[in-house]
């Protein structure tokens, strides 16, 4: 099959706010329902300031590690877990999701949530992952995490809060910059030119 060249991305810009958010976009299930947790964090720029105009998407398996193939992410029926959510940050750069702890998709695998980051001033979306902190053994043998040095590895692992929620911040730039992923391996998506 012929290989086509991908269409370039562009920044989401400042005005997505009346287009991309939708009702219950960040509630993969109803807050307070059994098994629900909060996933929350702040998006920071290279000066350490919160970014007030970023929007995040998460895509994850259910609590049993199943990849859900159900429609209804945009118009939620209140009961179907679809695995997809979207949260624009507020004025203080904080995003919030209500979701479940993802299960490992294979026995013994490290459980993670896939994340796409968009922001004004960010030329193209960035992919990353947020891992659950608990299963040390699985984290240690995870192919991605084990390819990172310890300092960078930490940026992909959420902190478990006392109430069972997860806290995970995103730093677009700087010494403790979040690890962002290139799935293409072509070098065409590299940050440094």
């Amino acid at each position, binding site marked *: 099959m012929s290989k086509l060249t*991908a269409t370039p991305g562009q920044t989401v810009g400042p005005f997505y706010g009346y287009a991309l958010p939708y009702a219950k976009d960040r509630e993969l299930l109803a807050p307070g329902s059994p098994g629900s947790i909060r996933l929350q964090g702040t998006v920071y720029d290279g000066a350490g300031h919160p970014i007030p105009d970023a929007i995040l998407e998460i895509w994850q398996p259910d609590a049993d590690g199943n990849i859900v193939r159900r429609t209804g992410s945009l118009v939620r029926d209140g009961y179907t877990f679809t695995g997809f959510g979207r949260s624009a940050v507020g004025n203080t750069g904080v995003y919030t999701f209500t979701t479940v702890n993802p299960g490992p998709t294979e026995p013994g695998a490290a459980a993670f949530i896939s994340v796409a980051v968009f922001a004004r001033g960010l030329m193209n979306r960035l992919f990353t992952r947020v891992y659950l902190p608990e299963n040390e053994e699985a984290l240690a043998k995870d192919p991605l995490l084990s390819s990172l040095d310890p300092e960078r590895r930490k940026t992909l692992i959420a902190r478990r809060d006392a109430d069972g929620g997860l806290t995970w911040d995103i730093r677009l730039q700087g010494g403790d910059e979040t690890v962002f*992923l290139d799935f293409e391996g072509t070098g065409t998506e590299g940050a440094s030119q």
Partner: protein
Amino acid sequence: MPDDVNLATYNADALTEDLSDAVPAASGTAPQAVPAEAPRVETQQDLSAEIKALGEAYARALKDGAPKETQPRLDFAPYRSSILRHPTKSLHHADPETIELHSPAFGHQDVHALEADLTIQHNGEPQGERIIVAGRVLDGDGRPVAGQLVEIWQANSSGRYIHKRDQHPAPLDPNFTGVGRCITGPDGSYRFTTIKPGAYPWKNHLNAWRPAHIHFSLFGTEFTQRIVTQMYFPGDQLFPLDPIYQSIVDQDARDRLVATYDHDLTEPEWALGYNWDIVLTGSKRTWTENEALGAEGDDHE
């Protein structure tokens, strides 16, 4: 320059009052330092010179055998708001795993067919030039991306977004919101009816204007294919001046964001037609026979 221009705002992006990421210079150093005197207003000439230098450096690199760049540079200083918002470390190569090799499923619970017509969302007809924008979403192997979500948003015909932070003193149109959605057909096709958006000013530098564009958000069959981008109109004189369009330094790559006027899409006595096909990255997953036939999602069109 008009006398009442507040110079301080011209180092901020867009039409917001948010100066949190305004920096005195492109160096990216000491972003919290307050300059002793008001910063010099940056003009289009300043920005054009920077854009030109980056373009020339890319042309030289190509001559020396560097690969063609197909995506925007994350680090593209002429777009001032990118200075503190681009990763400085190289993206880390990862083989997509499990969840990343699948995509959320969208269907007709999520999107009503009428959401693809942005001209019928209110009681009256919106102002401006009615257009049809249609094309196909393909993956990098040329396979149609069927049953997936396409979202668009745009300014109205006078270049004004309905967004509360858009302070451009151009009229809002009570009959135009500028948001649409659709689900791609079995052949990857999408089609929107809308109004041709106007160009609008922003505050990257003095006299900065964005070429007319429609924002597109697309999902593939794998989450790794997710993109948000902008579609432009052919022949726009603002292309060479726009730091966002020019952040894609390769002309062939930039051209991929420009729609083609298509008289076969034009409808008599009704609307002009533009064609724009979108190619996502290649699939990383081994496809089942059903998927290869385009049976993803609930694509009962």
